[in-house]
């Protein structure tokens, strides 16, 4: 089986990889690039644990083939912090105890960043519908919503 050569940007760095035709972006990230922060919870786009940003758009990386990544810019959970400085979404998730097992957390943080990039002041309903594609089985979403709103306020420059 011949492999496809792909060049793209991952977390700001130009990256090359070879992938099989049936490999997804999630497979490539986890198995070939060592970026295991994106998780596979379902492999069918239903759980959101593999959420990444592709050219700024929120995508389930399990639904996109590696070969489709040619020329794109991908941001994964590993690229959300600025070096060792946590992104406000990350620090507010910690402050508000918005995680229990932490498996869905990378996807939720990526999805929340995408939400706040698009809508800096979401209502609770808007935030809940935006995040409806990210399953969390532990928290009941309550503390996640608190963290989302606190991160939105911090990003707007309001004191928490």
């Amino acid at each position, binding site marked *: 089986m011949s492999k496809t050569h792909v060049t793209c940007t991952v977390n700001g760095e130009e990256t090359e990889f070879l992938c*099989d035709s*049936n490999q997804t972006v999630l497979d490539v990230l*986890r198995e070939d690039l060592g*970026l*295991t*922060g*994106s*998780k*596979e*919870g*379902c*492999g*069918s786009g*239903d*759980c959101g*644990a593999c959420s990444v940003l592709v050219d700024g758009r929120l995508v389930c990386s399990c639904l996109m083939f590696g070969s489709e990544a040619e020329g794109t810019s991908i941001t*994964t*959970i*590993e690229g*959300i*912090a600025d070096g060792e400085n*946590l992104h406000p979404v*990350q*620090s507010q*998730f*910690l*402050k*508000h*105890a918005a*995680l*229990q*097992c*932490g*498996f*869905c*957390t*990378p996807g939720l*943080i990526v999805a929340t960043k995408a939400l706040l990039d698009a809508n800096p002041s979401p209502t609770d*309903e808007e*935030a*809940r*519908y935006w*995040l*409806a*594609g*990210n*399953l*969390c*089985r*532990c*928290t*009941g*979403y*309550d*503390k*996640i*919503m608190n963290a989302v709103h606190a991160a939105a306020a911090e990003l707007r420059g309001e004191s928490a």
Partner: protein
Amino acid sequence: MNDISLKDALKVVGTRPVRPDGVDKVMGRAQFGGDAVMPGMIFGSTVRSPHAHARIIKIDTSAAEAMKGVRAVVTAADLPNITSEEAFVGEGPMNFRDLSCNLMARDKVLYDGHVVAAVAATSTSIARAAAEAIKVEYEVLPHVINEMEAMQPGAPVLHDDIFTSGVDPKPTTPSNVVKRMEFAKGDLEAGFAAADKIVERTYTTAPVHQAYIEPHACVAAFNPDGQCQVICSSQGHFMVRAYCAKLLGIDISEIRVTPAEIGGGFGGKTLVYLEPLALALSRKAGRPVRMVMTREEVFRGSGPTSGGTINVKVGAKMDGTITAAHAEVILQAGAYPGSPIGPALMTCWAMYDIENASAVGFDVVSNRPKVAAYRAPGAPISTYATESAVDELSRAIGMDPIELRLKNAAKDGTKALYGPTFQNIGYVETLEAAKNHPNLQAKLGPNQGRGVAAGFWFNIGGESSASLAVNEDGTIALVSGSPDIGGSRASMAMMAAEVLGVNVERVRPIIGDTASVGFTFVTGGSRVTFATGTAVCDASDDIVKQLRGRAAKLWEIDVEAVEWRDGSAYPAGDNAGKFEPLSLADIAVKSGRTGGPIAAKATVNAQGAGPGWGVHVVDVEVDKETGHVKILRYTAAQDVGRAIHPSYVEGQVQGGAVQGIGWALNEEYIYDKDGRLDNGGFLDYRVPVASDLPKIDVALVEVPNPRHPFGAKGVGEVPIVPPMAAIANAIFDATGVRMTSLPMSPPKVRAALDAAGK
């Protein structure tokens, strides 16, 4: 120290620090089961039965074995054929032979998704292709899915060696009814005769899956010298070690299991599905093997909890006194014996002080995956029925549902139907907290209703180990044996910090592998903060004693003349002499000169876990056109003893309540006529999403448990017990229609409204 009445004196317990493993988790660095790597590892996959019930005639692995990249194929022939033996290593009893057969079918497959072979290859895609190339010849047998049908004479019999126990005379022909159990007290007949109103009704529930987001995953190596390494996601790495040893016939000392981070479990990861297979493949392949389930495999092949049928009869006088209560509970065990029938019976009337009560249950096998523990196993099923019936009773006598519960509430000194006499319980306080919550003042509109239900869970203690080492700079390394499934490392560090009198950031907690810390029972039964927390406190007390001894040595005074407070040694009084206090760091740096490193370990078999009580109040709105039920407001009150880290305690309550909402409204296993699972994915097995829910308000009640150093009781399981009945009761309040079957999904609610002419 450790006087549980002195809450105000606590400096760390009760605060909300950032969890020590948090940064790894928000940055994507935490290593879960499927992230672990071993050098040279290859990849495993499984072959699963497409039939609900069939005899295996022949397995032809030759085509798969001939494929390029395939390194090993195993079937039941590669595993020891072990004899029947009861085990209690996970949560709930398990028979080793059944566990072995559930892992890999021998002779017969008993459910759609039952593993018949496994393969390892140099890539996952080759392994999956090889699995498809394995030819299994079956003789398909008649199957039975429903528990009531499985009990009928003439039903297809799964096992020819099951003769119902607990009945007299013991049957001479095999059946699917594994056992009958009974708890009884008082005189039921007299109790019902004394009642002014009696409610009698039958309820059914559907099996639901724990639906942790992380599928089962492990990587395992079987070395040529017999030593084995396993890294996996589980609720107990000592459990994994014990089961692997037993199922593969090797010594426990040959196996070292390292706990990965665990992506949710809720009881479902208290037994093994992959690890022994990965080791068997590794032994044959000579390479480490990683196995990760697909989501469909998780649904088809790992254990959900039981569905069941429950008959309830309960009676009361007009003044609200419950005079008699009876429940008959029939639970699906899945393909092998062992539904949570015991706890289902023991919990269903535990909230009440009733003179005349009984609970009778049956454990029934059918062609479904073997059930696994799910959060308060059994209790949500039976309590849905009993708390629905009590709601109906409160309406029949015209009494507020909380007042009825207060009037009959279990209190200190109440002797439970299942035996023990309750002590230090906070059920009445929990009812009062729910009653006084501001949410109950909210006005309800058209098609809206309010429902109340309560729930009980024992909570357990058991065996735990922990060790602490004082580092050279006075920081602390804390090792415990309990996998951290929801933030327990934070509470372990907090309890150690409280005892030692240091900032929590000075304590770094990890979970030790099976060779680095003493045996520790599974993370289950809401036991970790109580039992492992007790071990951590015991070891911390030992450290304090040693620190006092080192200070005494430096000061050349008696150890009894040294006291420890706020993280430093002080002379106990003027008579002890005048010395500047020595901090933990001061003593640590001098430890080489005062006797060597300072370390301590503690092991416990903790007894006296305080039982947990929850009272939930829910407001719903029913869309009469579609049958959709919207949750408007949710209030969960719970006695937690003492909240060590209140945020994570609230999180347990919220998460449990929302799993209960899913159980109530959406979740179920759906089988087609051939006994194949129809909804093995998150699209069709619908767990609650953010937009389904309102805020989940939590009222923590703290009636301390004197058997824990800080008063903690178990928390995680109680909150899944009340939601189903609370929601059913709210739907009745909104519509006047009693929902007696879970899930209360839109089509079923719509049908019930139709049947009632509404």
